[in-house]
């Protein structure tokens, strides 16, 4: 049928680019490893150096997978938010979901000392950070949802999201006033975002929650397409608005929440990737957009991470700086070029 484009060629190219950026990502790093050895290390053959094998398996490979999960997950959650709120500015960051996670983590890291000694040790373990971040994002999304049911104006919802950002910043400054330098440092480092220090076990848990989020997004494809018409039309087409909306919100908070929990608050990817995707795939059909956003998100995140590694140097830049440095100009460029954001 010619009525709907299938975009086979762009998908094929994107898939190849993804493969290429994946290989580039694991080939480059602070330690130089010849490509031949990287390839051998990947398929399990002996490499020229024992430690190379270790670097590839325990460090670079999980990092590359994390990049794919983070990029695609944030991109998709941005897409879901943009369609749900029918606003091109929507994204996990702008809606305050990331702020919610940050607030959860800030309260945990810096508030833990209030509970004192031994308890503080348990509370600041990695898993409690993950839980605090997820809880924070879910609660904020719930509040945004309740408000969006009462306030019809989507602009108001975005402003409320920004207000949550301010509340987070304010709470963090209040908390930092009372907390130790160590705690403050721990929080600041978390805030830089990092995709590099996940073990295979953590990655496994991460992947499971991520997969649930992705599956829920896939189930929502039809609802998302219907929502393009507006809520009243969607309702008249038999869509159960409340259920679909809750489904989309839960999918978003699972994706954005766990990603923020495991990798820190990574900004701009959620907002920028869907817009970048729409430049290549000029459609609003989520059957096309969703997989395209997935590919784009994964590719961009791999590239950002490759840059952040500063190949052949010992330094690693905070990933958040790189995504902002790439994301913000992209949004500006798109706006200047098209003068109007379509979604």
């Amino acid at each position: 049928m010619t009525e709907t484009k299938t975009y086979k060629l762009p998908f094929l190219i994107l898939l190849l680019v993804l493969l290429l950026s994946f290989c580039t990502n694991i080939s480059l790093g602070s330690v130089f490893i010849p490509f031949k050895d990287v390839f051998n290390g990947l398929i399990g053959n002996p490499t020229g150096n024992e430690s190379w094998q270790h670097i590839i398996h325990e460090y670079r490979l999980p990092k590359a997978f994390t990049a794919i999960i983070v990029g695609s997950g944030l991109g998709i959650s941005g897409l879901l938010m943009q369609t749900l709120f029918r606003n091109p500015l929507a994204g996990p960051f702008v809606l305050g979901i990331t702020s919610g996670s940050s607030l959860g983590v800030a309260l945990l890291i810096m508030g833990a000392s209030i509970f004192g000694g031994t308890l503080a040790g348990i509370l600041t373990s990695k898993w409690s950070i993950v839980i605090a971040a997820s809880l924070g994002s879910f609660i904020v999304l719930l509040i945004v949802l309740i408000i969006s049911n009462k306030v019809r104006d989507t602009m108001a919802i975005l402003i409320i999201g920004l207000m949550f950002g301010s509340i987070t910043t304010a709470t963090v400054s209040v908390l930092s006033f009372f907390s130790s330098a160590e705690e403050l440092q721990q929080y600041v480092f978390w805030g830089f975002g990092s995709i590099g220090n996940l073990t295979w076990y953590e990655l496994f848990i991460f992947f499971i929650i991520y997969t649930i989020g992705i599956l829920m997004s896939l189930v929502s494809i039809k609802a998302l397409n219907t929502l393009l018409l507006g809520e009243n039309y969607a309702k008249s087409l038999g869509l159960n608005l409340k259920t679909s909306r809750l489904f989309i919100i839960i999918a978003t908070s699972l994706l954005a929440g766990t990603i923020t929990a495991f990798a820190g608050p990574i900004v701009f990817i959620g907002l920028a990737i869907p817009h970048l995707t729409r430049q290549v795939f000029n459609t609003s059909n989520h059957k096309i957009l969703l997989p395209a956003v997935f590919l784009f998100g994964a590719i961009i995140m791999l590239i950002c991470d490759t840059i952040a590694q500063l190949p052949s140097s010992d330094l690693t830049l905070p990933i958040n700086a790189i995504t902002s440095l790439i994301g913000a100009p992209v949004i500006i460029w798109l706006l200047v070029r098209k003068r109007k954001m379509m979604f």
Partner: protein
Amino acid sequence: MTKNKSHIVLKTQDLTIGYASKKAKTVISSNINIELHKGELVGLIGANGIGKSTLLRTLTNVQRKLDGSITINNTILENYSNINLAKALSLVLTEPLGSKNLTVFELVALGRQPYTNWVGSLTKEDFQIINQCLLQTNIDDLKYKKCYELSDGQLQKVMIARALVQDTDLIILDEPTTHLDMYHKAYILKLLQKLAKETNKTILFSSHEIDLAIQLCDTLIVMTKDTVIIDQPSNLIEKGTFNDLFPKDLIVFDDNTGSFRVKK
């Protein structure tokens, strides 16, 4: 009346519409008894603020009725599930589209949603229905255009096609002729008349184009402050219903031409 024998699609009995809050009920109109038959084009007219939109919102289950009953195809409105109501009633609203970055075909195809599978894949039959509806509404040549490229008149035709594709016995349109020029106002209403005849669907629309509605509709629902009257346009003119539609200080209804004119 021979019409009474034909199939009744929409029926209300002692319907009361308005807004209910915790404190009090605000009744906008009451004792509404209307019957719409298959294949009829029905216009809903009345002054601004008289409750046309409230009536349409109540009939389409967007807003709760205060009293009385509404039945569509002999089933009480409240008993419909979302999906079954979507197969019995389709809408064209005044609210803007959520996204205009859809092609005309994609937008019209969304009308098949109540019938498609979980990802919304279109079957051969769906394609057939969509293409037929595109032809019926004369927008086949716009198929691949994006909605943001369309004029208001074209977009209205597309929205009508989308409702048509939903394949319901009843189509309700809220002021389909606003923002359109005189030619397109007549064009859209004429199109609705043609569709009602060709497809044997019941089409109900609210409008301020009283003169056009008198010429084109099979039945008119006239809302005034006190009553809601439903009858054929010619009978309504005879009864002088239109004289009471508006305050009489500015415009008067001319029985001969079937239109309003400004008092000199």
